């Protein structure tokens, strides 16, 4: 009798301790047989996700790709509990996203940045915008200021901290949306086509920023249609009609043209040219993920021929 009472009293602490110890080992984000359908008042429900098994570790850099309507945004929104699974489950750091009491912990672990950052700004200066989230979670003062300054520094926004968010460039707005999430100290960031409306320089800037976050141990999940962006990631998860059609490295994916075709994906331009030239007998590696690799191969090929 006393024993049971003892266990009940200790178990939440014990669980927290086990979670803490297992952090490095356990996957940060786990989807198990995740299915999601949208029922629209009386219309036949639309099955967006049909059994996704996925596990993402801390500090990984994952591209999430697939055709329009393949389920990318639905999956992204399941990752921090914005949408709840119809069946199966999503675990964030061991917490089930369906649990109401863990909602705050889950949303501060997994931050979301949407396509149009304007939709997510509410304050009148960059600094206030970054402070908004943690302030609402009741983060006390010296800590709050620290977090805001860190987030501004990490995103290179210190110089425009007092500007109106609406006056930032597209790249600046993207970075602000990320800074606002960073202030919540998430361990995972989900970027749902954040670069879609950006010009090429702003896109490149945001991608570089995401890579720095990954280097600091934050898992980044990057939803995109741009294959040249995918080439920079460590892992690609491609969705196909609500199922996982491919899960592996960009090099493996782009080496298999038939698979890319079947998943409705294109090739990055450097791979396209390298494959064409390799097929015609030029001594270049067919899967040139970056333009620089293709340039190196071509320079070597020319010098060896001469």
């Amino acid at each position, binding site marked *: 009798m006393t024993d049971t009472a003892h266990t009940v009293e200790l178990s939440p602490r014990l669980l927290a301790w086990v979670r803490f110890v297992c952090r490095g080992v356990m996957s940060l984000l786990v989807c198990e047989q995740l299915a999601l359908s949208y029922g629209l008042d009386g219309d036949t429900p639309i099955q967006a996700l049909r059994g996704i098994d996925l596990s993402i570790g801390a500090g990984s850099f994952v591209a999430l790709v697939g055709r*329009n309507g393949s389920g990318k945004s639905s999956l992204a929104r399941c990752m921090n509990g914005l949408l709840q699974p119809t069946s199966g489950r999503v675990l964030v750091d061991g917490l089930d996203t369906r649990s109401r009491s863990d909602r705050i912990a889950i949303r501060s672990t997994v931050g979301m940045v949407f396509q149009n950052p304007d939709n997510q700004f509410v304050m009148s200066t960059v600094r206030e915008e970054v402070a908004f989230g943690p302030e609402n979670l009741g983060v006390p003062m010296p800590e709050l200021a620290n977090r805001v300054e860190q987030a501004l520094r990490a995103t290179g926004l210190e110089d425009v901290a007092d500007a109106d968010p609406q006056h930032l*460039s597209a790249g600046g707005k993207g970075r602000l949306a990320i800074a606002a999430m960073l202030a919540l100290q998430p361990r995972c960031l989900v970027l749902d086509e954040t670069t879609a409306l*950006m010009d090429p320089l702003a896109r490149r800037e945001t991608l570089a920023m995401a890579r720095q976050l990954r280097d600091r141990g934050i898992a980044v999940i990057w939803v995109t249609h741009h294959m040249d962006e995918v080439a920079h990631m460590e892992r690609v998860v491609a969705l196909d009609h609500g199922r996982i059609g491919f899960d592996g490295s960009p090099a493996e994916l782009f080496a298999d043209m038939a698979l890319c075709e079947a998943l409705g994906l*294109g090739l990055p331009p450097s791979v396209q040219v390298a494959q064409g030239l390799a097929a*015609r007998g030029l001594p270049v590696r067919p899967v040139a993920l970056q333009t620089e690799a293709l340039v190196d191969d071509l320079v070597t*090929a020319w010098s060896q021929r001469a």
Partner: protein
Amino acid sequence: MTPIIEISHLQHTYLAGTLAHREALFDASLQVLAGQSVALIGPTGAGKSTLLHFCNGLLRPRESGRVIVLGHDMGRDVDLAALRRQVGLVFQNPHHQLFERFVGDDVAYGPRQMGLDEDEVDRRVQWALEAVALDPAIFADRPTLSLSGGEMRRAAIAGVLATRPAVLVLDEVTTGLDPEGRRQLHALLRRLKYDEGVTFLFVSNDLDEVAELADEVIVIHAGRTEVQGPTRDVLADISLLERSGLSAPFAPALFSSLRARGLSLRGAPLTPAEAEEELWLAWKG
């Protein structure tokens, strides 16, 4: 040939005369000839969308400058309803364009407003949905709000196509489309251009797409149009692009790096396919 759209020295300030005023255009000029496809490129905030909104009378010249569309001086009285039937504008954000509950009704809205009979409306809805690769049998009865981002984009384009405009003004319409969808849309635009003589003015942030589609390119930077010229000339001018806050598309950038590393290459490819061809020819010697 008389231009379909001619804008000269246009200036525009949003909310002019109020505290919230914001200058968008300082000196913008462009010309689009019949049957041409012209791309407008520039960094975010350069004034691209503003300039497009002048082309179907959403904005009218109030300060200095002239806008002539299909022979109408847009600074004077124009029958806007008639003009918009000829000049279709697809917005950057499909949410601004879709408002009916079902996709089929949304696409039918334009043709119905034109007073066409229901058979013709149906034919056009079928054609337009097929043109953007949304199977009418599946999508016509789908609730608009159930569409994914890319599907909404396609539905918005179908709604404009269904009015069969002679001039299409497109604001970053391939944004959010998957690579397949982008290829299909490119093929559709080419078909409309070559088979039906449709004239295009479009904004795109994807310079590889501009290389595929445009006859001419206009560069706009900070409210001023810098240059209008043949696509090959403008996209090969890497220093101009960089000065204007843009980066070169893949093929010109590749050739410029190869030349910097000592390869002597002729030709100025615009697309990856052209780059491959040029490199193959150079390799064979």
